[in-house]
């Protein structure tokens, strides 16, 4: 474990940027049609619960990161195997998000540039940042957070003043009852992006003020959920259900619609900058979690030495995981969220908490 110190504000910023990450890019929960925002809020509620689970586990072992307490709870061999699975999951997720980034740039701006080059440029920066440690990433986050919010608020005001939002697009609410919304909740939004909060269990031990971490974390998840829900509601308000679902990047289409006073238009750069920043943090945090877990399992003293080889693996994985964007999305939605995420993001953490509870029952209860 490295020596790092993360303040509460930094934790808040990291969670927010991580949750917005690629979720703000794609038509999130678009299967719920005009009730997408509701499905996102449900997902957020699930995220709050999962955060609580991770936090409770952390309270049982305040000095340890997940791979270590997995070994304690499940025994040496099973714990190591499980932790190893998580390393692969983190790396795969990092590669997926990196691919999202590359696909976004290639679809929209750099049509003739190879995917590898675009991904490599971002990955090199991420490798550099993570090799400097999580504290550096967190401090960078502080800088960019204000910038993102400035962009978001300006964008929101401009969309409002362009008169693009048609609230009627969001009606009728719950047209086919609550069931389709719940379906989207347990097949998509619970895992992406809210279940992914699991990576933060790798960061908990570094938090300076451990007592308030829970409150701040819950607040950050709540705020990111509300932000995502508002974004999706605006997308649907501006584009309508059909266009939002058919858009590869609905937020981009929404922003392209801005036309204020004949000169404030074509603000696509707003979208580009904010997604590049958010994705930088999402990949960084996943990547950091993978590197730190590997260092713990294989007892490597300097985790930063792992960043270059593992970063290269992620880079190549991001290019090879799918041959087309459609395949990439299908894989993400139909395979990963259906078979991998429920197991690793929900079931195992809850199970671990149960075991930890039983094991520690006889000892004094945690704070």
């Amino acid at each position, binding site marked *: 474990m490295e020596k790092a110190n993360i303040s509460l504000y930094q934790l808040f910023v990291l969670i927010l940027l991580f949750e917005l990450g690629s979720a703000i890019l794609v038509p999130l929960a678009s299967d719920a049609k005009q009730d997408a925002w509701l499905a996102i809020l449900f997902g957020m509620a699930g995220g709050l619960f999962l955060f609580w689970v991770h936090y409770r586990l952390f309270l049982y072992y305040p000095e340890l990161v997940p791979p270590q307490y997995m070994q304690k709870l499940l025994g040496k061999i099973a714990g190591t195997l499980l932790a190893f699975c998580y390393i692969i999951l983190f790396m795969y997720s990092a590669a997926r998000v990196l691919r999202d980034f590359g696909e976004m740039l290639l679809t929209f701006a750099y049509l003739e540039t190879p995917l590898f080059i675009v991904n490599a440029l971002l990955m090199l920066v991420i490798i550099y940042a993570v090799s400097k440690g999580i504290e550096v990433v967190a401090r960078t986050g502080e800088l960019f957070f204000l910038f993102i919010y400035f962009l978001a608020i300006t964008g929101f005001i401009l969309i409002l003043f362009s008169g693009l939002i048609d609230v009627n697009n969001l*009606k009728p609410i719950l047209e086919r009852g609550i069931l389709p919304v719940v379906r989207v909740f347990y097949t998509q939004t619970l895992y992406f992006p809210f279940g992914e909060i699991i990576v933060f269990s790798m960061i908990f031990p570094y938090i300076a003020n451990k007592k308030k971490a829970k409150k701040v974390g819950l607040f950050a998840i709540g705020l990111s959920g509300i932000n995502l829900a508002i974004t999706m509601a605006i997308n649907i308000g501006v*584009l309508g259900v*059909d266009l939002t679902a058919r858009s590869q990047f609905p937020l981009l289409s929404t922003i392209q619609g801005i036309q204020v006073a004949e000169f404030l238009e074509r603000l696509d750069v707003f979208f580009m900058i904010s997604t590049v920043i958010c994705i930088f943090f999402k990949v960084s945090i996943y990547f950091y979690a993978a590197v730190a877990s590997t260092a713990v399992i294989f007892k490597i003293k300097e985790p930063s030495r792992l960043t270059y080889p593992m970063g290269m693996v992620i880079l190549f994985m991001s290019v090879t995981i799918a041959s087309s964007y459609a395949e990439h999305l299908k894989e993400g939605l139909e395979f990963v969220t259906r078979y991998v995420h429920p197991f690793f993001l929900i079931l195992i953490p809850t199970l671990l908490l149960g075991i930890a509870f039983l094991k520690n029952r006889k000892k004094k209860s945690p704070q």
Partner: protein
Amino acid sequence: MNNKRILFILVFFVSTLLLSGCWSKKELTDLAIVAALGIDKNEQGRYVGTMQIINPGNVTSGMQGGGGSQGPPISIVTGSGDSIVELSRSTSRKLSRRLYYAHTNLIVISEEIAKEESISTILDPLERDAQFRSTAIIVIAQGSKASDIVKVLTAIDKIPSNKVIKTLKITEKIWGENIAVSIQDAIKMIVSPGKELAVSGFRVNGDVDKGITMENTQQTEPASLLFAGSLGIFKNGKLIQWVDGETARGSVFLLDKLNASAIGVEWEGKDEAISYELIRQKTKVSAKMEKGKPRVSIEVQAEGNIGETKVPIDLNNPHLLLKLEKEIEKEIKKEITMAIKIAQKSKSDIFGFGEALHRTNPKEWGKMASKWNDVYFPEVKTDIVVDAFIRRTGLRNNPHQVNQ
């Protein structure tokens, strides 16, 4: 130390990648900026695209140092192909530059294509392409080829596509017989089962052959002029009917796109005796089910001033103004009723009554959606309530005829 060495090697190799130049750079001098795209069909049934390309040197005005030469501000290139993408690429044989569509803000579709096939086939490549803006405006070339609308030079706005768009936007605001519809709006309306598409036509008069020369812009009355035409009603993406005049204005009223207009009102038996200058209006459409049948209520709130009187009338008298307001309400109601009748006759719900019903009665709508236009919409009963207000009468109160 080892770390630093790896980093050094990495930076060394990567910088060679970056320093060699930009990856897919396109110099400004290699781009042909397309301002408008006109789409026709030729005898063989292939698409013919006419691109209006901006001639940058000739657009700058003579006032600022006079760098601009005497040539036309635009240049036309055409291409043909079985698809839009194909015709666009095929123009490269005639052009020394790459076509650049990011500033295309006008799409002209020929009347022939609009009537024969669904225009959604043309809209697909336009919304899919990353360069194209979905805010580009669509018009139908009414009574001429799309290429004519794209080719003709205009006097006040040097770039003809700007003239077309500004004309549409301004007339939508102050006269209200036309609407400016963007690609995105059009697609939304085509997709929605509860709302059909309505797009403005654009016409060209006079001799197009003279219109494409610079002389067209160098005379007080151009030999060939572009002007907004009628309002085209679509069904399933196909143009089925043109509407004009008060019917068109009634439609724009119902679409709640109208800002201002001038409405002629009858007074004491004299037609068009008083002109009412509308300055703002708000139209609300709501639907409900009544005895198993959809019923639509329309509420219009209009505000405006008196702009002209041809008859002696005592405008100081508020009671008379109230009476006048009733007349105005009658007139607006008449226009809206005409618009609804025409739309119902052509079985195309351009006003979005279906969408209004969808919002309030989703269950019943589910059963009707597929047959809405053909079965239910023509039978819809409407209740129209117009509330008109006369706020002011201009700089004078009574017309001078009164005090004679």
